[in-house]
């Protein structure tokens, strides 16, 4: 299990134990963490699972593929740390990961 901290835009924190193999998006949705809509269900096709991941974790989360880059182009408030959380697979190495939510999903 990996402990992941989801921080809503308002600052409310949710600490969740997520099973390896799930995505960071699924960890939130299955545990009713608000702020991630995930309309497409994890197909990298809607960009409503946008989160910010601290740069220090980049080695462990892996890099964005082309489709994720493209979909992020159409999201709002995109920064360097932006990721689509359905594209990050949870592994034991992500124990302690912190993700922050944007103000809204578009």
């Amino acid at each position, binding site marked *: 299990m990996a402990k992941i901290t989801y921080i809503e835009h308002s600052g409310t924190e949710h600490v969740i134990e997520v099973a390896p193999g799930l995505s960071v998006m699924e960890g939130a949705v299955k545990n009713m963490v608000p702020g991630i*809509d*995930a*309309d*497409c*269900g994890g*197909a*990298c*096709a*809607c*960009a*409503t699972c946008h989160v910010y991941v601290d740069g220090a974790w980049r080695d462990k989360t892996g890099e964005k593929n082309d*489709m994720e880059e*493209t*979909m992020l*182009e*159409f999201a*709002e408030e995109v920064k360097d740390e932006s990721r689509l959380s359905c594209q990050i697979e949870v592994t034991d190495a992500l124990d302690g990961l912190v993700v922050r939510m944007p*103000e*809204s*999903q*578009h």
Partner: protein
Amino acid sequence: MSLAEDINPEDLPEAYSMPIEEMDPSDGRLFMHQKHWAYFERMRKEDPVHLSENEEFGRFWNITKFKDIMAVDTNHQVFSSEPSIVIADPPEDFTLPMFIAMDQPKHDVQRKIVAPTAAPANLIVLEPLIRERVCNILDSLPIGEEFNWVEKVSIELTTQMLATLFDFPFEDRHLLPYWSDVATTTDEEGSNNYMEEEARKAVLWECYEYFVKLWNERQGQGDNPKMDFISLLANNPETKNMNDDPLEYLGNLLLLIVGGNDTTRNSISGGVLALNQNPKEYDKLRADPSVIPNMVSEIIRWQTPLAHMRRIAKEDIELGGKQIKKGDKVVMWYISGNRDETEIDRANEFLIDREKARHHIAFGFGIHRCMGNRVAEMQLKILWEEIVKRFDFVEVVGEPERLQSNFVMGFLQLPVVLHPKK
């Protein structure tokens, strides 16, 4: 025009009356008379990636299952949106360039420029004005007597919302749905409101001239333009010369008008009808209005205001065991994907409190996913919040009259009587 002929709905071929190879769901009359459901049900079961061919539209693939539609919609490298996104091909001499019908990279550039108008941050700013306009409309409706909901509520409200997004002169707002209707009035979509091409062009040039005036007024706002569509286009370095190509300016304006017009309008009507046909669901709404945001997604799934988008394969590719050839037309039937039982639980029931209601395909997916989805959702949410405050029952008192089209799932008439809250 064979399609424009009136026909007794009984004479339309039934879905299960023919060999599967002969099935062709593209006749607009099927949709008008609600015969299309059985066509898609049969194709999903027996031949989910199905080839049709007819005189009007040539050869085209029908994609009917949720997952296959998703596969096409997200593969923009292979499936091109150019030159058009409806089954029929556009008239050769008058193709309006608009980013819904463009591929990368141009699509991306243009979409990003206008997207902020329809983004949540701007909608928070617009919400009070949109709510005020909703309240004014609802408070002016006749009580206890029959009227056409489509005309007095759905069209009026959508028009006012569009006027808000364009910061369009309020007193002239009725031009917006007029232009939208003219823009979509061709015989391309198996529709029943045909207009001569010359007359149509003339009206669209009037539209253009009007918007050129607004464009000129709104230039020169620098790096921080106002948030309406026109100011954003007129002040962005990438598009500030768009006006040099009148067709391109007109095309993109029409995309923003048409995109928001029929879709939202028909979701407003479709929701009233669905709640009347499912009285238990209406009871749930009365008992707990906090279900409204969820219900809004369910209404949009149920209505699926745009039945399809089409693509053209740029290379040979296999889909669902079929060989699609380079140059083939591929039609993604959202209206069918949204009733796919293998993807959506109890897909053929209207359930306003369903789980994962947002997981529908009415807005498409991938790079062309609807840019106005949050606008539409907000408009419907505010409307239903204000309806339940005022009325116990918006009662449908007669048969709805529907549009003949294989593209826009629309209503012309929905007779209702309002029953105020006791």
